[in-house]
């Protein structure tokens, strides 16, 4: 962080388009900026907005790589802008909004809406076994390793990078994406969820679900949380196919 190299001139090409505004058309706009030590795209974009263009739209919330707000196409690849250090990028940086999701404006997309729809469609919550909870009682036990395994899949921040990186999702609007599949894998693993594989088959046993995945694996390669998407989708495919052909 204390590298004393002379600062580069960075050149940003940012896709501008505001669907709310009449007459707005998609175009690439160029901004120049002097790089600073430890500069992230979060810092850079805010500087551009504050000093050069107050109309530029983008989303940051946590600016720490944990909330999933700031997914965007960085030189063609989806990634979290807040934790992308400019020093790891060439001096020409092209930024575009994540495709597939509804565009709010410029770099801002509505991943929230998409994820909520996904949650409703795949019923991504623990379907508890019947009976009222007695909160006064000691909780049910769970194997410590299993808890960790579940957490590993639970770490998804719904940033949408896996969806934006997926060629299948690009072609097929209704494909649930790696995020959807990994969520099902997560609940499948959870003994608190009463659903069986047959239930999961109803949710993802078709070409919009696990059988639609063409194993392009870009999801796995871009996931900022390094979720084991490759193994999880494969595992799910085996289990769900087994239900189907039985």
């Amino acid at each position, binding site marked *: *962080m*204390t590298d004393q190299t002379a600062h580069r001139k960075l050149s940003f090409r940012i896709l501008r388009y*505001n669907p*709310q*505004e009449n007459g707005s058309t998609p175009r690439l706009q160029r901004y120049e900026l002097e790089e600073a*030590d*430890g500069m*992230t795209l979060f810092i850079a974009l805010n500087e551009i907005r504050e000093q050069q263009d*107050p*109309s*530029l739209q983008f*989303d*940051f*919330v*946590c*600016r*720490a*790589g*944990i*909330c*999933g*707000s700031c997914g965007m196409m960085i030189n063609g690849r989806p990634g979290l802008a807040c*934790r992308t*250090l400019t020093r790891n990028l060439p001096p020409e940086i092209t930024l575009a909004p994540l495709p597939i999701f509804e565009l*709010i*404006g410029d770099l*801002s997309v509505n*991943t*929230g*809406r998409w*994820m*909520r729809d996904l*949650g*409703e469609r795949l*019923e*991504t*919550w*623990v379907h*508890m076994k019947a009976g009222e*909870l007695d*909160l*006064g009682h*000691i*909780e*049910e*036990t*769970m*194997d*410590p390793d299993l*808890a*960790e395994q579940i*957490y590993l899949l*639970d*770490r998804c*921040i*719904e940033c949408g990078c896996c969806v934006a990186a997926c060629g299948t999702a690009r072609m097929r609007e209704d494909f649930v994406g790696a995020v959807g599949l990994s969520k099902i894998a997560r*609940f499948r693993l*959870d003994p*608190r*969820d009463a659903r069986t594989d047959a239930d999961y088959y109803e949710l993802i046993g078709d070409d919009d679900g696990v059988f639609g995945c063409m194993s392009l694996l870009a999801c796995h390669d871009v996931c900022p949380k390094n979720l084991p998407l490759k193994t999880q989708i494969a595992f799910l495919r085996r289990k769900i196919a087994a239900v189907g052909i039985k």
Partner: protein
Amino acid sequence: MRIIYTDVLVIGGGLAGLRMAIAARRRGHEAIILSLVPAKRSHSKAAQGGMQASLGNVIKGQGDSEDVHFEDTVRGGDWGADQEVVRMFVNTAPKAVRELAAWGVPWSRVRKGDREVIINGQKVTITERDAAHGLVAQRDFGGTKKWRTCYVADGTGHAMITAIADQAIAASIPVHEHNEALALIHDSGRCYGAVVRDLVSGELTAYVAKATALATGGAGRLYRVTTNAVICEGIGQAIALETGVATLGNMEAVQFHPTGIFPAGILVTEGCRGDGGLLRDADGHRFMPDYEPEKRELASRDVVSRRMEEHIARGKGAKSRFGDHLWLDITLLGEHHIRHNLREVYEICHYFLGVDPVKEWIPVRAAQHYTMGGVRTGPTGESPNLKGLFAAGEAACWDMHGFNRLGGNSVAETVVAGMIVGEFIGDFCDRPENDINIPTAVVHDYLEREQARLSALLTGRGTEDAVALRVAMQEIMTAKVGIFRRGKDLEQAVDELQQLLVRSRDIGVRYRAAGANPELVTAYRTQRMLKLALTVAYGALARSESRGAHYREDFPRRNDAEWLKRTLASWSNESDTLPTLTYEALDVRRMELPPGWRGYGARDHIHHPDTATREKEVEALKAKLASSDRFAVQQALMPYEQLLPPRLRGRNERIDDRS
């Protein structure tokens, strides 16, 4: 301009808001959640370390109970807390953890047998009991006598909000994302909802509701260096303040976290120190034992932050071109521990610093972290001044934290308050007299007022630059209303902030789109934030003592005789440039734990005249009930169960009760 009617309007989609909405929904009321961002992206997500609840599953938590949690919390808050509320809280926290466990939160679990931990820089082997195997585990956190903090690796808040937000989806609770409450609608002391701006289209809508619940989180962005997300701007508290009716409690109580990454301010969790991490200075010396021989790195946050600043002031900080900092050393925890239990910390160091915490030290310095103050509510979560307005979570001053909150008590508060206040909201909506009876004309007046304010910014001839004002405010707050406070600085701060506030009435924007317009948002938020900043600075100036996180160099002692009271700020008139401060005394005679020494930090507080009497009373009661169980003693000292909603009463089982 539209009007949407609902039973419960919840402003805020963080842990507190979601849990309140679920409670209300389960009681059969319709609820709508408003949020600036998708609910799961709320800042609750960022909580890493964990949630306190006295389950006592791990061996180091054996013997823990509501009583110990209660005392830790009251001490931590330097006796500023409402002790009845603390009691309500500690009794519900275990229930909250257990409910979340059933809802799918993958709490880290206890593994029976030996394991190695680091305590006070030493490797120690501890043996977990067979009976605890597979139960929710606890870790050590600052300011607690027992290991009490339940956690999910170091993504606790993330796992909690994922589970709760998914439950909200299951309950079909709509979340209106990208919507911002700009003003509360109220009439004759009764709150009826809010005027809301769609951040994408710019459209204004009035949400009219029987009950309005604020859960808008903290206000860290009043400061330049903060661990808080960029949306933690305190707008919820500000709009409550702007009603002129509701009050804000203890806004001067602002917590600084010892370990913000330097210079970005991104937090590395207290769990680092809880698990055995050490603080070192420029010479690599571990300095905390020199100042705090008993709790060392794990004294409460206000103490550690102050000691760090003190040490830097002595010239012991490591130098860098951004200023001085200290080091957090977790290398001694080992690669496995760091990569499994401190995964987020590892990632943050890796991505933002290019540092490998397994081998290298992490540059840290204290950063603004938590807003103890907020919308003042009673134990039911309702504002005492504005009927129908509820608040919970960081935005509220329910007042279980007093002047300093303990690590892990905040996410616990959000869920617990969500459960409790949600029930009271249910009760409120059940009562027929609380039906909505506001004339639409009043609603339209509010809509028009807000529209006019926006238009003034968009089409007016204002010349002030919102970003510049905001930066100036943040500098003032960080430099003069920070960890160490002095009367002279505070006076200056109040003066300068007032000037900024006046100037902010003349803000103009360059980009004049009525729809999505980040500059406009900055403009109207800055105007509100300045008012909030003034309540902090003015409250701090007035409070001539040191208590918890509020530290006055010119008044270093805690002064119970004069200041055992809660600051209440209100903004009576739109043209004012200062809040109106009033005070609410805390009643020592009813305290279960009369004011005393916290167990760390200074011992030289000035006593309240009633303390001695109450101490004797407490002693006498305890002696009299020596043969009774702890519940009977507690009941005699300060009955509180009647304050809880019926379904949340009752004791909490622990494994020690079983054997």
